């Protein structure tokens, strides 16, 4: 049986467009609202990435830090995150869902208990920002046993030799970080350069679904639409901040923003 993530990529390929992936933080700005946000986004996005916030995030820029901060201030905990996922997976527009965060939370929860819970509520994949190859070997294997896709990351600094090894160990989706940056940075590399790196990776194994993330916004997304998938995160987190500041509803604003993103890549 193929995974829901793989199925999604195959469907997008049929439609000759990249999959649209979104990232928002669980609990931002409340548990209930973050659930409403992903439900609204899921009408247009193909795969939902949901962050479980950590208070010492070494790879996140200002926008996602702010979202995480709001969520933590509201007391979000892992059981709440699982609850949000469960509710979402039972909703009308349920889509594949990937949890994303830092390893310490998984370590304290217990990696096996964490995976069991993931399976129970319907988590399809995991991105662990600070668990690179080969540190992730045993955890990634456990993910596979639980039918959870462990998403390996590649970056412009990853050597070719390493890329080959990582691809060999990868599951249904690989994430290419577009540039040297934390999340939320301005796209400082030309789309042409990004796609050329992207193609180098695809040439090693064209069957692997490779998504591009970091620095992608409504302004830049169209230039990268040759990819298998594109991730937008910080722009959405920033929109939540903005909506809250001007007392508008983030749920409708994010729904609209994601629809707009989708229109640019079909």
């Amino acid at each position, binding site marked *: 049986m193929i995974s829901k993530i793989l199925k999604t990529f195959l469907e997008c390929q049929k439609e000759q467009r990249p999959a649209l992936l979104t990232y928002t933080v669980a609990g931002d700005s409340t548990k209930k609202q973050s659930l409403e946000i992903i439900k609204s986004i899921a009408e247009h996005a193909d795969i939902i990435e949901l962050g479980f916030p*950590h*208070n*010492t*995030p*070494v*790879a*996140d*820029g200002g926008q996602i*830090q702010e979202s995480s*901060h709001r969520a*933590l201030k509201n007391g979000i*905990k*892992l059981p709440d995150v699982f609850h949000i996922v469960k509710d979402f997976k039972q909703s009308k527009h349920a889509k594949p869902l990937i949890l994303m965060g*830092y*390893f*310490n*939370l*998984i*370590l*304290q*929860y217990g990696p096996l208990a964490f995976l069991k819970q993931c399976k129970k509520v319907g988590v399809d994949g995991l991105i662990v*920002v*600070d*668990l*690179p*190859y*080969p*540190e992730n070997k045993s955890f990634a294997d456990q993910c596979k046993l639980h039918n959870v896709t462990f998403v390996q*990351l*590649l*970056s*412009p*600094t*990853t*050597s070719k030799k*390493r890329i080959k090894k990582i691809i060999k160990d990868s599951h249904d989706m690989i994430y290419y*970080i577009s540039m*040297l*940056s*934390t999340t939320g*940075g301005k796209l400082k590399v030309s789309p042409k350069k990004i796609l050329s790196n992207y193609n180098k990776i695809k040439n090693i194994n064209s069957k692997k679904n490779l998504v591009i993330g970091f620095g992608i916004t409504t302004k830049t997304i169209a230039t990268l639409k040759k990819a298998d998938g594109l991730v937008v995160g910080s722009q959405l987190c920033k929109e939540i901040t903005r909506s809250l500041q001007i007392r508008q509803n983030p749920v409708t604003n994010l729904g609209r923003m994601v629809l707009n993103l989708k229109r640019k890549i079909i």
Partner: protein
Amino acid sequence: MIKIKKGIPLIDQHDKNFLYAKKFGGNFVPETLKKPIEDLTQLFEKLRYNKKFLKQRDYYFDNYIGAPTPFVKLQNLTRHLNGADIWAKVVSEANGGAHKIYNATVHCLIAKKAGKKYIVGDTGAGYAGKMLSMAAKKFGLKCKIFMGAKDIKRQKPNVDAIRRNGAEIVPVYSGSQTLVEAVSECMRYWVSNCDSTHMCVGSTVGPNIFVKICAWSTAQISRELKNQMTNVFGKIPQKVKLINCVGGGSSAMGFWSEFMDYSPIQIEFIGVEAGGPKNSKLHAAPLTNNAKIGILHGAKQYVVQDKEGQISETESISAGLDYPGISPLHCFLKDTKRARYTSATDEEALAAYQLVTKLEDISPSLEPSHAFAEAIKLAPKLNPSNIIVVNSCGDSLKDKFIIKKRLGSYIR
């Protein structure tokens, strides 16, 4: 039962995943940093065995930092406490005023070898930042220092020094606005700029290579001390206690490393963490308070955290010790029982500063005052055949405003 191997530097006693005792340290970093860390690891492994590089290091240690720093008997304190024989290794006499200069100098030398023009670093007490900015200036590197907004306020003398050295200070406003946030922000900056910029981590924390470089650099302290003790006593005495404060643990590692293979009965290592205010639950003492193992800044370590794994808020009067984590090397020393760890409260550190300053020619900053607090507790219980050596690794001048506020006046 895990054991320390004899004859092998402690920093090298890790497995292929860079873990000590299979559970401390490692490289839990974003993918982007894997390559720069690997490059730095290779470069450092080459340099540390390269005669020319060692000669260069020794030249700067001797002529720029000033070697050796004094080893002095604290006559009056010894008499006052009427027990153990108390000595100090006055590392604050090093250029710049603290042990942070060793790590900073070595990082600048490495950055030059790596062809980097920019260098960045974190700082809490401001010493790591002051030293890095000083060394960067000397070696012609452009320097940025990340510092928590709270620390910028409470460590003004060092902040002024950093600015005078021409470095840019980047204030960090997130979270606690102290060292833990400064290190995070510095790592984030490195993620975005690792192609052009060298990163220096200010203590024996962070991804493994930074733990190694830092401990390798501060080891100069115990190399000197070994010679000095041999000269003074004719040999290494039979009952010695080496007492050092621990924040990240770089001064303690440097103070102890040359004595690692001695029996703990002959040379005992005592690390003193920041216990925080007397009547507060907050502290920065993960080892003393049996914190659980977690991941902080790329390394597994005992770290002050909540049940979920969120890093907890810490508090200490001493900015340099105000850090929730601790070097993987000290976790290793704790688990193997080679070192013993305890803590001193803010009030005990202040009292120790006051007593030492009144009786002696030295005036320790609030970090080493934690170590002196433990020495003051222990000394009266021991007889004069016991020798206590305290690493006086910083000068109170940088804390004059805090001390004045807490004690009403500042004397040095």
